[in-house]
């Protein structure tokens, strides 16, 4: 059984997760075999789906939880947290 890894992140880029950051996040998530989901409040969406990520409308300062389950869950979480902390290459 692979365990579930969970990590909370805060959106730090001013514009929030709009199309470009969403695409980056989804592309990165798709590199991993694990099942990855992103939760905001009571909403849970698949991290590998851009429509899903955009549904969250995660603005600046919102808190998200990333959960991953699978063989490379740990690497996936590490990479996704890094991407958010780098503000998706934005301001």
């Amino acid at each position, binding site marked *: 059984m692979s365990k579930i890894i969970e990590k909370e992140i805060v959106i730090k880029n001013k514009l929030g997760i709009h*199309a470009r950051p969403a695409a980056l996040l989804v592309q990165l998530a*798709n590199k991993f075999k694990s099942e990855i989901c992103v939760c905001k409040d*009571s*909403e*849970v*969406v*698949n991290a*590998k*789906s*851009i*429509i*899903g990520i*955009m*549904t969250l*409308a995660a603005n600046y300062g919102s808190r998200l939880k990333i959960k991953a389950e699978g063989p490379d869950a740990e690497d996936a979480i590490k990479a996704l947290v890094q991407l958010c902390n780098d503000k998706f290459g934005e301001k």
Partner: protein
Amino acid sequence: MKKRGILVSEFFEHLKEKLSLRLIAGKHGLSNRITVAELNRPGLALAGYTDYYASQRIQVLGKAEISYLNNLSSEECSRRLRSVFSNKVPCIIIARRIKPPVELIKVANEKAIPVLRTHYMTMKLINKATIFLEDRFAPAITINADHVEVFGVGILILGKSGAGKSETALGLVSNGHRLIADDIVKLKLTEAGFVVGEGSSMTRHFMELRGLGIINVQTLFGVGSVKERKKVELIISLEQWDPNKEYERVGIESEYKSLLGIKIPHLTIPVRPGRDIISLVEVAALNYRLKKLGINPALELNNRLLEVMKNKAFGGSSV
């Protein structure tokens, strides 16, 4: 765990315009929680009979209740209101824009119970508020799927990321069927006991296709190609063809999948290059409709087979 129910403030905000509600007292109680979808008219309780009085419900005061209160002496009125409007009452709604007795305003402020007023008649108000509350209280889940209407049948398409759910839905739309939601489907259990699916208001009728990006199905294919919500009548799971797995070959017995506690017919369609999934989904929809009419082709063929074999056993001529 999310707390059950909704806040009075949320109820007020959502129905403010629809019911032209105004807050006239007890604003400190806007954070009270409404935990049940029913409303109550506290006539009997105000008259003194409090057995089975549903204090946790929203209390509705109409012409009868208010005129009864107006007929009481001021002390008696306050006493009755205090005993009936305990801290459990989430809020009070007054119908027909009737002016309530001052005692009611006083007690409501004292106990922090918001008092809302509308110009609607009592029954109209109860109907509208119940519809809103029942929708809010319906058990719901959000899942990763595509929801389409094919020949009038609501089909939920499940499958892993990359299984071809969106492509199948797109193919169905270009064949003249309708899209309800791509990728994210909110499922709700209705009072009537069936599951209804709809898209998220944020991304409704948008779709992502690998290689193309995001498209808007409604503007591309026209308003007739989309629908807001639809009952889930059939579930189809797409999965990679697995040579070691046994797939349904006959179809006499139906397989079901449970959604929000409701059993829904379920088919698994294995995907491999050269299989036209769109046609298979269309045929599945038509076959579902036939079965609903009481026609089961697998059963029909089997009955024919049994008949022929019976005749042979009795020495009849072969067909």
